[in-house]
């Protein structure tokens, strides 16, 4: 391969790495915007902690746990730290797509995302120490192990032997559902926020305190997704990268539109937060098959994802669970939908592929639910996972951090 092409590919992959990094700001903004001001510092603290520890953990062992090279398909580990292979900086390393360093950083940026998803769902009530320990274990071990099963060349990628296997282009399951399942287990164990359900058991609205910030977060995430999906091509291949950006954007647009229409039909109200969640649902939905879909198929996937968001958000309320930012609907439900959609739409569609997709979803579900349950139940027994009632009512910012996000605006003493 020519040096110019290798250089161009690598630049594209580094740009995508930067875009995926930027998504962490998007997640933070969305999460802050849809929660109350008294917990803002706490949420930012968690998100910043996730990025820093996510990268360090990926350096320590995550990268080599996720990409162990030749292994038994279930669990492999090629050593601590980074050890650059002989050809790591040449075009031989990854078909000329990127260097070893780019590989590490791009994948490292992905790793932290799984914990960010959990952070949104458990916001406003989880004990900070418990969340930090959970993040260390889940991002450090569970995420790379699941990743190795598919992207590391493990057993999911060869479910059908040589005929093919599970397919997950950029992580509807491997990233979003991995975070989503843990989020679901966590909110079941945590219980709803005080005031989320009335004495009659009916759900109550707990308003987000900064909707403009939430909107900015979602638009930043959309931008970041160009890197998340675009970079998952693993090179700057003109045909595939450009297709992926088109399918990604069309699915996002369709998801937003269908969510706002569905929400208007059901609730007679133009709810911006549902519109925003719909965009994210579309993005998560297209992620598993962004390189396989035609534009129209991408729109169909996004459109259904948007409707699933509306159903999902109210389903969570009906189940007496509390997910302040809609993380379960966006990342879990749309993650499952996007993964299954690979068997329904696009180049791989077929009964056999649908079965592979379904198996992948089920296997990852079992592993993630079990591992997050074990981690959280042990934490619950040892240090507790929920803050005290007083702390929850007065705000985590005051009690855990002794700070106020907006010291000049103390109007709302909830």
């Amino acid at each position, binding site marked *: 391969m020519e040096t110019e092409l290798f250089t161009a590919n690598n630049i594209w992959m580094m740009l995508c790495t930067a875009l995926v990094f930027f998504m962490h700001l998007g997640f933070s903004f969305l999460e802050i915007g849809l929660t109350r001001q008294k917990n803002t510092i706490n949420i930012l603290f968690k998100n910043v902690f996730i990025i820093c520890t996510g990268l360090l953990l990926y350096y320590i062992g995550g990268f080599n746990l996720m990409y162990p090279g030749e292994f038994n398909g279930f669990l492999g580990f090629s050593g601590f730290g980074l050890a650059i292979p002989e050809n790591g900086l040449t075009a031989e390393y990854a078909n000329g797509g990127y260097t070893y360093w780019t590989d590490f950083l791009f994948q490292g940026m992905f790793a932290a995302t799984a914990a960010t998803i959990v952070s949104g769902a458990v916001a406003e009530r989880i004990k900070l120490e418990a969340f930090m320990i959970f993040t260390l274990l889940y991002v450090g071990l569970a995420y790379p192990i699941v990743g190795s099963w598919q992207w590391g060349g493990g057993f999911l990628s060869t479910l059908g032997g040589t005929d093919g296997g599970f397919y997950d282009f950029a992580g509807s399951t491997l990233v979003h559902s991995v975070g989503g399942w843990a989020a679901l287990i966590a909110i079941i164990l945590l219980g709803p926020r005080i005031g989320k359900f009335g004495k009659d058991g009916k759900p109550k*609205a707990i*308003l987000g305190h900064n909707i403009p910030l939430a909107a900015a977060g979602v638009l930043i995430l959309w931008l970041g997704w160009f890197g998340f999906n675009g970079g998952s091509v693993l090179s700057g291949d003109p045909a595939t990268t450009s297709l992926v950006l088109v399918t990604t954007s069309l699915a996002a647009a369709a998801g937003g539109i269908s969510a706002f229409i569905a929400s208007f039909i059901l*609730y*007679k*109200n133009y*709810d911006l937060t549902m519109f925003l969640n719909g965009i994210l649902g579309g993005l998560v939905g297209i992620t598993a098959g962004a390189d396989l879909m035609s534009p129209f198929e991408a729109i169909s996937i996004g459109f259904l994802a948007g409707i699933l968001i*509306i159903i999902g958000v109210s389903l969570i309320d009906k189940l007496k669970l509390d997910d302040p930012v*809609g993380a379960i609907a966006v990342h879990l439900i749309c993650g499952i939908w996007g993964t299954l959609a690979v068997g329904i739409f696009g180049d791989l569609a077929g009964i056999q592929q649908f079965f592979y997709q379904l198996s992948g979803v089920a296997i990852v579900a079992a592993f993630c639910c079990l591992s997050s349950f074990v981690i959280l139940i042990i934490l619950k027994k040892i240090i507790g996972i929920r803050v005290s009632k007083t702390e929850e009512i007065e705000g985590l910012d005051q009690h855990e951090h002794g700070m106020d996000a907006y010291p000049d605006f103390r109007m709302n003493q909830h």
Partner: protein
Amino acid sequence: MKKIEAIIRKSKFDDVKEALHQIEVNFFSYWDVTGVGNEKQGHVYRGITYSTTDIQRRFISIVISDDFQEKTVNAILESAYTGNIGDGKIFVSDISEAYRIRTKENGHTGIN
């Protein structure tokens, strides 16, 4: 001297201010207030309907001489009116003393 306090719709504030200027009441204070009342506002947030009785209004406080009372009250009654529930209220009370800090004047000359 009298103090006239009025709670009015924010949307009627400019009309009220204009009407007060018309009758040469040029000095007053105001601030935004939140209260509870009969008016219920229905909202939907993420699929959950809720109603709030917290109502946003503007509070005006005017101190005037006794002979201005009637026309001031009338000006507000006319200018703040829409006919719908929630137009607000006016309260009149006595003021025993008033001082102008700069000149140390008191009484009627202290307020205009």
